[in-house]
Structure formats: C-alpha cells, structure tokens
C-alpha cells in the first residue's frame, strides 16, 4: 500500500503516517499532523474510515464509563450508608468484645465487625472514585493512542465486572444492557484499533 504522507510545515520533508518526529528537522509530529494523516488515510480507504468510526465510538464509551462510575459513586455511597445504618442497629445489642457467629469462616468480635461495617460506604465511594479517575485518564489517552487505551479500558471493565460478580452474584443482572453495550463497543473499538495500528505499521517506511 502506498504511504500516506504530509509535507512538514517547516522543512517540507515528507512526514509519513505513524512517524513520531519529522525526518528532516526532527520536530515532534503534532496532534494536528496526526489528525490530517488520519483523515487522509481514512478518506482514501473506506475500510479505514469504518475502522476509524468504531475506534472513535470505543474511545467515546471509555469517557461514558468514566462518567457512569463518577455518577454511581455518590449514589452507591448513599445506598451503602442506609444498609450500614441497618446493620449497626442490629449490632447495637452486642458488646464490643462479644464474639459473633463466623462470617465466611472468619470469627469477629462485635467491635471489629462494627468498625468493618462503618468503613464499607467509604470503601464503595473510594473504589468508584478510583475507577472513574482511571477511566477518565484512559479516555484522555484514547484520544492520542486508541489501541493501548481501549485495550486497558476493556481489561479494566472486564475485571471490575468479574470481581463484582464474585463478591455479589446478583450484580450480574444489574444494568445488563449498559454492560453488554459497553463490552460490545469497547471490543469493536479494540479490534478496529488493532487493525488500524497494523495498517499504520504497513504505512511506516522501512516496516
């Protein structure tokens, strides 16, 4: 396949797709240069144009997931708070050093369990906050390098869903439609960006 190139605005050398610096004057290739190269490449090849659309959809969904995690953090905190207050009412009848029935094979005193239960809403808040920040960072990265960013986002989302399912099997069906759409778009974005990266490597001189 013939290389898609642009002339350097400074030295007029030819900058090929995938280059990091200009081969003539060594200036870094800018985001605008990359955008022009991508538009040219996609404009000259229908398959590349379709791949580009899927990659952009995948990147957009990484941002959507960041917003969803950010929004769900305070909601889940509030829900967990109400569960915690109920549990604390039940635990009120026990003294701090009273030993309770084993939970998942572990024996706790009432005081230990009270401290654990009190922590839970904050754990949920911090966990969702961390996930929102991570997805946000990946969304920003996806604008520059879609393949690694979407791959990481897909892996992160998969792990989060698997861990949630293990900890609480009833969570599998919660928001199942959103989950399926997210997986589908992220997977398509990943495969499209993989194909785009392979095609870009073919465009690179000497590869």
């Amino acid at each position, binding site marked *: *396949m*013939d290389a898609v190139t642009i002339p350097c*605005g400074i030295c007029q050398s030819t900058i090929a797709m995938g280059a990091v610096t200009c081969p003539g004057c060594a200036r870094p290739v800018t985001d605008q240069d990359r955008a022009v190269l991508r*538009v040219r490449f996609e404009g*000259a090849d229908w398959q590349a144009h379709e791949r580009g659309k899927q990659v952009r959809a995948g990147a957009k969904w990484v941002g959507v997931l960041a917003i969803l995690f950010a929004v769900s953090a305070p909601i889940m905190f509030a829900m967990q708070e109400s569960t915690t207050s109920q549990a604390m009412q039940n635990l009120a009848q026990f003294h701090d050093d009273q030993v309770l029935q084993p939970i998942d094979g572990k024996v706790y005193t009432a005081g230990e369990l009270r401290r654990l239960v009190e922590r839970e809403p904050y754990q949920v808040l911090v966990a969702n906050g961390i996930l929102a920040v991570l997805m946000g960072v990946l969304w920003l990265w996806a604008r520059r390098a879609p393949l690694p960013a979407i791959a990481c986002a897909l892996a992160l989302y998969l792990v989060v869903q698997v861990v949630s399912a*293990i900890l609480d099997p009833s969570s599998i069906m919660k928001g199942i439609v959103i989950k399926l759409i997210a997986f589908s778009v992220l997977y398509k974005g990943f495969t499209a960006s993989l194909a785009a990266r*392979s*095609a870009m*490597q073919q465009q690179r001189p000497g590869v």
Partner: protein
Amino acid sequence: MTDLGEVRCRGCGVRNSAYSKECLTCGTLLPAPSAIAEPVAPAAVPSPEELHAAALGGQRIGGVARLFLVTLGLVVALFIANRCGAPEVIAETVADAVLALVALACAFSARAEVLPLLTRFGGWRSLAAAVAGLAVLVVFGAVYFPSVRWLGMQLIAISEPYREAGWPLWSIYLLNSVVPAVFEELTFRGYVMARLGTLLTARETLLVQAALFALLHLGVAIYPSHFFIGLVLGTVRQRTRSLYPGMLVHAGWNAVVVWCEIAGLGFP
C-alpha cells in the same frame, strides 16, 4: 482526504474545500490547508506479505489477551475455591503452580525474545538499577498504603493464611516473595512486553503491561499502586535489558511486605 483540494469532515463525513476552516454542514473544525496541500495516496490492495504481517501482529496481541483471560480465570477459580471452603493456602499454592506453568509456556512460546533477557544480567549498572527501583517502591509504599488505609480501604495481608496454617517462615518468604517475583517477571516483563512491543511503542508497551499487571491483582485499592510497581519494574527491564534486576526488585518488595506483616508493622 478524498481528492486534491477536498477534505472529508470527521464529524459528518461531508466533503469540504481543503481551505475551509470548518465544515460547512456541521461546523466541525477541519485540518489546516498547509498540511493537506499534497495529493492523496490512492488506496491499493495490500500485498500478501502486508496481510501476513498484519495478521501476525493481531496474533501476538491475541496471545497476550488469552494470557490475561486465563490468568483472570485462575484467580476467579481461586476466589470461588476459597468461598467454597477449600483450604486457602493449598488453593493458593496450586494456583501459583498453575501460573508458574503458564509463565513457562509463555516464555517458551516467545523464547526468541525472552532468552536474550535471561542470558544477561548487566553487571553493576543493573544492580544499581535494582537497588534504585526497590528504594523508589519502598518510599512510594510508605506514602500510598497508609493513605489508602486512611481513606477506609481494607488491604489484604498476603502472608496471613500461611501464618495461620503454621507454615515455616522460609516457605512463606519463598511462596510470597521469590516465586511470584520469578514467574510474574517472566510473564509480564518477559512475554507480555515482548509481544506488545511488536505493535506498540516502547512507552505504550510499558504502560499497558503495568496496567495488566495491576488489573490481575484484583483489588481496586491496589490498582494505582500496582500500576506504579509495574511501571518501575518495566522501566528496570527496559533500562537493563535483563529480567534479573526486575526479579530482584520484585522479590525485595514482596519480602519487605511479608517482613512488615510478620513483624506487625503498619507498613505497607
């Protein structure tokens, strides 16, 4: 770009003059005219060699994806076994053995890339890199883990099941410090970095392997810390072009964690 003097809008797909600043249909900003003054390269049918190279790149990344899914499956099986009441230490040791076999299989399948990393140590420079890496991790851990505890997150003590089962001290250090260091380095800094390096840039490879390393430790509170640990170990591997300094850093870090747990210290 579809023709000389025309540019396709990324927003709506409509062709515009290359000299328009924005799309006349949807208003999306178009690329600057100076950068698109050259004629478009026509689309050509890729050669069989090009198709083969593209397929090879996909296969190599596919290997990393399969490794990720297998490891995730194993960790899930370990979780389920623990929930079903299987003895924790036995289940952990079996899972470690299976992961070690997976690591060896991965290293064998990428032997052309992994063997050079195992046949050199790099001398004093590598040793200095290992010491510096371990120092960075200890300083980072001293700040990160107390902060996470302060935020209310619970951290798991890796040596606790072994101590509760009464295993000897040497076996606790061996199974929690040396074994993970050797096989995780072989897998992530050996196989994964070698495979990702065929399609990604060096910086992307470093970031992705660190992300996968963090994710497979399955704990939201430790994603940022293990991502950082993965970055440090990946940097040591890239700088020294050997797996041994990374193994030293990894084993040293795990040994510090186990020692603190046994001594009853709050760090990490």
